[in-house]
């Protein structure tokens, strides 16, 4: 059906996506589309209070409702030692509350019934008596003397502090600040937001009473890791657990963790002996599953008399909610936040972080970002623009003066990251050219003289993606490698199975293209399968832009491994020496005699029909790739805004996004990722907010309060590129899924702050809504 079907589909070709066929016809296989024989439905009762002691739970009336099979409480789960479960950050989290509820929306009980409607009816008949306790809704509140102790369940926990974490060098940083010509400070709050994939989370647990096999269909970005976690939580032997991640309707980090509903549904299926489906509604998704950000950050930038950055000092307080359930590598309590020196050659830096429990939902997932790199990128890019404005230097010039230069790569940052490659001045030049920066600057000056409020914002972000390497990066001890298993059938068609899991990124196309390039089998002939732990090789999953850097590399490596076997087969068929064969994508020929050749398909057929003496039959292999380093995509984004003084409304006039993600495998898909990421970044900058009132009620619990951008508000984005290959990735690719969400919020807010800078306004925290801009202008005496 596709206009690109005839193409080979190698690297660099924008072939149309293979996965589209089923989605276009409404024949995707999302979790809620599955109906198993005898399937029951589960509904969860959640706490209406942020902090309360449970005095009693009465399930009698609920149990008597039509269609109800069981009502599950924390007490019942505790009898099976399943009232609590481990989190991805080494803490514990309540599955169903037994003692207290610690956030609004926490799981208290569950009803299993014949239909969804019956389960929800009965849920509403459960009676719970609460004793309301004082809630804690911010890190400052958590620190306050006399604050409620949220985690009184934890032995030895005397306050609401979770962790203290540091990176960099305090002594040299202090010394540099003592000598600084100028210190610029920015205190900013990156508010809580939510990934909000359009499909919510859910599962169908199907435990076979005879064999004991637990098959769990789950909206999971990381099915293999989840299987291991399930084995540890439930005590079931791992070979008896099969996680199937079907088509996923967006993830953005929200579908990495294990949620209590998965555990309850599995326990219920085990006890009842029938499949149990649980699918969240939107409110449940927004108030209880993995949120993102919620970092209160203070950054100080030291600058010398020549405008060179000399040191960076950052402190942050992290609001982690009721359970420390951040999804991130276990060695790094604040994720990869210490990439905070960004694109700049800053000689020394010191970062401190403290995490706090609050009566808010747990999570701290990497929302379209590599483990807190978004917060880091936002802070440094906002701070750099503020410094330029305060020093009276052009934002672009100030950045260029301080960029890590192309010849400095590989570059070791002050906090110990080894940047693989980059050309920051080039990306900036391309962006500024595309924007027409010099002319625009003059235009801004002229319009400001007329009293208009207008400005330009720039962000030159550097990301760090593609975890591992495994020695440094692990989740619950599991090294962050990834895998690809490739089978070439006798007719030369192939099956590629991966340890990662697409949520819309187009893996079925992109990874087939890597095989097409490296093994010469057209992309159309390569079937890509992911998400079934009984068939796919083990992998850590898709998040943190790691699929192409890690699993893409594994695909290249396994393809090359099979190519070497195919060379032996071709040599056998051609009766030539394998050293004399030349590889040209799709075939081997004898050096000097191009007419004597064998295609990869002929070699594959020979692997099953005509083998050299002593060779094993078949053409298949598996590769587990543990990357030698992270990859470091980067780019420059530039935004132009106009602000209406009367209403505070911000209008994004232009947005130019130049990305460098190394080699692009399918440019169409790469640009699609960037467009989507920019839209989410726009939403975060201007619209999206999960907040809480003083009682701990979640404001932002549905799509009428948690505002996602539609086609009407979203600006038209102009995209550009540079290509600086990763030197250590087999294909030179770096990963791109998250760059735009990481880089764009600071560019949007910098444009607003640049526009407001003539009035002495230096910060507005996101989301930058009209009322905040209006109030800021009024506070400086600006009216119409």
């Amino acid at each position, binding site marked *: *059906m*596709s*206009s690109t079907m005839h193409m080979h589909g190698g690297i660099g070709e924008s072939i*149309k*996506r293979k*996965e*589209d066929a*089923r*989605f*276009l*016809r*409404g*024949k*995707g296989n*999302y979790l*809620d*589309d599955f*109906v198993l024989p005898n399937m029951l439905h589960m509904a969860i009762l959640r706490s209406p209070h942020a902090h309360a002691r449970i005095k009693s739970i009465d399930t009698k009336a609920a149990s008597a409702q039509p269609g109800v099979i069981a009502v599950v409480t924390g007490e019942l789960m505790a009898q099976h030692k399943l009232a609590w479960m481990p989190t991805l950050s080494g803490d514990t989290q309540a599955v169903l509350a037994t003692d207290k509820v610690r956030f609004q929306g926490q799981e208290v009980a569950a009803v299993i019934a014949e239909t*969804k*409607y019956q389960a929800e009816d009965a849920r509403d008949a459960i009676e719970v008596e609460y004793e309301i306790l004082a809630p804690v809704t911010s890190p400052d509140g958590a620190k306050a003397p006399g604050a409620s102790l949220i985690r009184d369940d934890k032995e030895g926990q005397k306050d609401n502090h979770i962790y203290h974490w540091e990176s960099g060098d305090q002594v040299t940083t202090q010394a540099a600040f003592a000598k600084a010509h100028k210190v610029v400070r920015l205190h900013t709050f990156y508010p809580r937001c939510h990934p*909000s*994939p*359009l*499909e*919510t989370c859910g599962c169908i647990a199907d435990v076979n009473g005879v064999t004991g096999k637990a098959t769990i269909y789950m909206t999971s970005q990381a099915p293999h890791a989840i299987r291991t976690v399930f084995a540890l939580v439930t005590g079931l032997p791992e070979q008896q657990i099969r996680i199937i991640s079907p*088509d*996923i*309707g*967006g993830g*953005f980090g929200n579908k990495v963790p294990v949620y209590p509903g998965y555990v309850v549904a599995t326990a219920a299926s085990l006890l009842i002996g029938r499949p149990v489906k649980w699918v969240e*509604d*939107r*409110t449940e998704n927004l108030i209880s599953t993995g949120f993102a950000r919620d970092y209160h950050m203070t950054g100080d930038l030291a600058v010398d008399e020549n405008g060179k950055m000399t040191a960076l000092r950052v402190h942050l307080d992290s609001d982690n909610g009721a359970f420390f359930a951040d999804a991130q590598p276990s060695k790094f309590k604040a994720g990869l936040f210490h990439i905070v020196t960004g694109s700049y050659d800053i000689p020394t830096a010191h970062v401190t972080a403290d995490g706090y429990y609050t009566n808010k939902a747990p999570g701290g997932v990497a929302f379209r970002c590599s483990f807190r790199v978004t917060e880091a990128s936002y802070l440094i890019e906002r701070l750099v623009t503020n410094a330029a404005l305060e020093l009276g230097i052009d934002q672009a010039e100030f950045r260029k003066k301080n960029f890590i230069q192309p010849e400095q790569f590989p570059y070791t940052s002050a906090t110990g990251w080894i940047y693989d490659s980059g050309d920051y001045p080039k990306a900036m030049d391309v962006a500024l050219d595309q924007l027409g920066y010099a002319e625009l600057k003059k235009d801004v000056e002229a319009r400001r003289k007329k009293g208009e409020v207008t400005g330009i914002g720039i962000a030159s972000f550097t990301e760090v993606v593609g975890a591992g390497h495994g020695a440094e990066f692990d989740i619950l001890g599991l090294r962050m490698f990834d895998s690809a298993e490739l089978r070439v059938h006798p007719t030369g068609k192939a099956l590629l199975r991966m340890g990662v899991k697409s*949520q*819309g*990124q*187009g893996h079925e196309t992109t990874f087939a293209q890597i095989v097409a390039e490296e093994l010469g089998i057209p992309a159309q002939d390569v079937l890509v399968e992911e998400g079934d732990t009984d068939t796919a090789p083990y992998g850590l999953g898709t998040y943190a832009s790691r699929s192409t850097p890690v699993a893409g590399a594994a695909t290249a490596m396994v393809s090359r491994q099979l190519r070497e076997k195919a060379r032996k087969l071709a040599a056998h068929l051609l009766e030539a020496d394998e050293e004399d064969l030349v590889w040209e994508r799709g075939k081997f020929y004898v050096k000097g005699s191009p007419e004597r050749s064998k295609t990869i398909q002929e070699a594959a057929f020979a692997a099953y029909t005509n083998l050299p003496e002593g060779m094993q039959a078949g053409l298949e292999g598996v590769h587990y790739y543990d990357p030698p380093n992270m990859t470091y995509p980067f780019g420059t984004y530039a935004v132009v805004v106009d602000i209406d003084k009367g209403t505070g409304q911000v209008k994004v006039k232009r947005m130019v996004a130049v990305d460098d993600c190394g080699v692009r495998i399918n440019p*169409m*898909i790469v*640009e*699609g990722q960037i*467009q*989507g990421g*920019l*839209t*989410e970044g726009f939403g975060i900058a201007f619209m999206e907010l999960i907040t809480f009132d003083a009682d701990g009620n979640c404001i932002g619990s*549905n*799509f*009428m309060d948690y505002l*996602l*951008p*539609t*086609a*009407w508000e*979203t600006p*038209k*984005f102009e995209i550009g590129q540079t290509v600086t290959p990763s030197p250590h990735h087999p294909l030179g690719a770096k990963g791109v899924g998250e760059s735009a969400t990481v880089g764009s919020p600071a560019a949007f807010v910098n444009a607003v702050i640049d526009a407001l800078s003539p009035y002495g306004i230096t910060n507005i925290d996101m989301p930058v809504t009209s009322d905040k801009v209006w109030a800021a202008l009024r506070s400086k005496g600006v009216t119409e």
Partner: protein
Amino acid sequence: MRVNGAERSGDVEPRVLLVDFLRTNLALTGTHVGCDTTSCGACTVLLDGEPVKSCTLLAVQVDGREIKTVEGLANGAALAPIQVGFHEEHGLQCGFCTPGMMLVASALLERNPNPTDDEIRWAISGNICRCTGYMNIVKAVQYAAKMHSEAAKAPAAAAVAGGGE
């Protein structure tokens, strides 16, 4: 009711939502639930040719009326122009919002065969896409509009372009 051109019936409780009737009773799972509050449009279907959100309509409200879901867009193996447009312009990623988007867009093209980009943006502004952003979706609708206008000029040629695997 008539669904995708076929007579369908069933006994339902008065409170059953149209989306649940379509998904559960008729096994038409291409209509998705994204928000429950009429905000996201993943559940959009056409009711007598007009886009409606099936998560906030009762099944009994559409008794005797005409419903079109995503499953009714293609003509057998031949994709409708709007489906071809979404494929060619990379107007989808995870695919969850896609059925609703395509139905809203096809209703727009019915009444306005040559929409401007802004008219398309306004028409789809009741539908949220979380993955793709909207640039490629607008292009996809324009692609379909162009296919329609070419089909009007040369019916036979356009039928080939729109059809077949």
